[in-house]
């Protein structure tokens, strides 16, 4: 009896696999399919990010920013008479889904991709993109390995080490003598900022009293904070994402700490996660704040409000700027007119145009100097009575 079932079972496997193939075919054919890029046609750009799941808030913000700029360009007549068509896909914060979505975009015939949003899926996509030399611009991926994947990969945000160094210099300027750190010791971003901070702080003659790590998903930081407070620091560097930062600041205040916290751009949005009085007088660096008098920024905020009826944050602004980087490059290539749309030459031309171009974004003027990392100015922000303010601007 056993052997008989074995055979039938194999047949069934065949049938199932058959179903699999058919179902897969069905899934694939749904996407719109204008491969043509003849004049008056459209230019297809991929937009990849997590729009559901744990990190959806970042993906949605980047998407809002990017879609806003694309809409503005299209309303102004598009590029070279062609409309920009976005091929948007949700990867749910998952590397597997991201690679699947990337492959689907390649099949759909996109000429550049704005994405991905968070580190690990971004790196997976960047590696995959090497097969196609696909121009890839991430609004928000700070991990070093992302742009190291190849010359076709760029980002619009500043990197982790850059922020760490910047905040250490800032701490020295503020006259702090003793500093401590608390960071997610498994996080690429957090470790990147904290390490650079410690290195620069030491070279500036500051004393780093203690470096405390925690694991992703932790909610209780009391133990680490007790250790830190026992060393009496002037400031605590807390370069994590805002939800963790909110908890850390609150718990430190519960323990009676009255000093300053320093942070990096992961703090953007922290105001919703800790009380105004707990945050009073803390500092963090960021590319964007809504409370910036700059004309360009104010116009962006007004446009964004008109479109979405909400205030833009750092990720929205970076999404907007990443779209500027890509579309500027496509415009250069289209005006040049040498490469035929959709060819490998066309993609290479876009990559070259990004590398040599300048994008005038709402988070500052973005240039690339031989790497995928941008050169751009940075803001140091502070909190006053529950309002975020620009404390100083650090030029690139």
């Amino acid at each position: 009896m056993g052997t008989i079932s074995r055979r039938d079972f194999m047949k069934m496997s065949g049938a199932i696999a058959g179903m699999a193939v058919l179902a897969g075919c069905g899934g694939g054919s749904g996407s719109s399919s204008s491969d043509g890029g003849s004049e008056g046609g459209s230019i297809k750009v991929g937009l990849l990010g997590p729009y559901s799941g744990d990190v959806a808030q970042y993906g949605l913000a980047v998407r809002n920013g990017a879609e806003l700029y694309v809409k503005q360009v299209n309303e102004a007549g598009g590029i070279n008479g062609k409309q920009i068509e976005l091929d948007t896909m949700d990867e749910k914060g998952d590397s597997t889904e991201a690679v699947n979505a990337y492959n689907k975009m390649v099949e759909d015939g996109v000429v550049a991709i704005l994405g991905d949003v968070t580190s690990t899926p971004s790196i997976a996509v960047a590696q995959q993109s090497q097969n196609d030399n696909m121009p890839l611009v991430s609004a928000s991926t700070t991990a070093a390995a992302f742009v190291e994947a190849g010359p076709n990969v760029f980002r619009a945000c500043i990197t982790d080490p850059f922020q760490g160094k910047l905040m250490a210099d800032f701490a020295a300027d503020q006259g702090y003598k003793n500093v401590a750190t608390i960071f997610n010791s498994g996080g690429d971003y957090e470790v990147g900022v904290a390490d650079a901070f410690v290195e620069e702080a030491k070279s500036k003659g500051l004393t780093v009293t203690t470096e405390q790590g925690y694991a992703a998903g932790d909610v209780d930081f009391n133990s680490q904070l007790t250790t830190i407070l026992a060393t009496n620091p002037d400031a605590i560097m807390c370069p994590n994402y805002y939800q963790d930062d909110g908890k850390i600041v609150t718990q430190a205040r519960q323990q009676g700490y009255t000093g300053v916290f320093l942070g990096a751009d992961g703090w953007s949005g922290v105001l919703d996660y800790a009380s105004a009085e707990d945050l009073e007088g803390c500092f963090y660096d960021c590319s964007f704040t809504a409370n910036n008098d700059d004309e360009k920024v104010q116009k962006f905020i007004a446009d964004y409000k008109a479109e979405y009826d909400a205030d833009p944050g750092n990720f929205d602004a970076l999404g907007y700027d990443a779209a500027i980087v890509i579309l500027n490059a496509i415009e250069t290539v289209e005006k040049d007119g040498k490469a035929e749309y959709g060819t490998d030459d066309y993609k290479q031309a876009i990559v070259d145009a990004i590398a040599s171009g300048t994008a005038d974004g709402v988070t500052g003027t973005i240039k690339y100097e031989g790497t995928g990392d941008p050169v751009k100015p940075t803001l140091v922000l502070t909190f006053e009575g529950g309002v975020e303010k620009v404390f100083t601007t650090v030029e690139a």
Partner: protein
Amino acid sequence: MAKKTATAASPKVEKGYKSLSMPARYVINLVLVAVFIFVGEAMIDGGMISRYQTGVLEQVGIYIIMAVSLNIATGYLGQLPLGHAGFMSVGGYSCAIFIMRNMEAFGVTARDFATGAPQATLLFVVGLIFGGIMAAICGLIIGIPALRLKGDYLAIITLGFAEIIRVVMQNIDGAIGMDLTGGQKGLTGIPSYTNFVNTFVVVAISLFLIHTMMKSRHGRAILAIRDNEIAAEATGVNATYYKTLAFVVSAFFAGIGGGLYAGCIGVMMPAKFGFMKSVEILVMVVLGGMGSMLGSVISATVLTILPEALRAFADYRMLAYSIVLIVMMIFRPEGLLGSYDFSLSRIIEKAMNGQLFKKKAKAAKEAK
């Protein structure tokens, strides 16, 4: 394609009420597998199946291995391990790291995996087995203490062990001062050493091995323990030995599945192999029917393809999973197919009486 495999088999079954000899059966199965893989590969080469769809198909194969291997411990042994993803993680990391570190020794470059050079294939096989063995060792380490405990305690201890694996994968680099797993940010740059053909060859071999084991003396001992451990022991079955065996074999194939996963995705992240992933695999097993290999295969296939086909409903997928689990347990605790594997012989008997054609026509229609 489903049609083809069906017609290829039917002429050989048609005649007589006697069953076929063992070698003939193996040949038939081998031919079926070969035809399936050949046709699939031909469709990929011919552009009928896109790269995206190929990727999804590979994941189907991987989850088939995961579900069927969990079924050994859940359906056949009757325990509830909640750490299957932990074994997958161990296998995936071990296999990927082994292959990445030995590429030079084997004289293999990343490109060779795509062309199927013999050294690359050898490295793939060795790496996969290495991954499986590492997972099996973990299965042994946890199995010995865990299997002394009953149901619930076993569930929680395996859950705990999978969490320990996660923490170890996240922090081992710092502890031993080597760049091994890449920590929490994950292991990146894994060469894509899997493809449609080798994935499904591994799936076929795994299913064959698990099937033959379950039909053997050892398999029956395991089933006896599930049905009544005390009675089984009274009849001379060494319960501890067989429980551990089932557990280790289950872990081994989970490791194989993990090894394929690493090559298919190219990135390994410890957090991906948490409790959630274990439950996802468990849902496949429960849905298909605990103790039914066919059920596991079908539900793994459907539950892998469905979310891809229905991307729009992604938000509701996990909610639907949970409702399905609850409703299933209340109304049909034995799963969709129950233990359908064992009644397959009846279908063959029907087939021998000339009723096969109807069944096959139906199967082919379903495939469409």
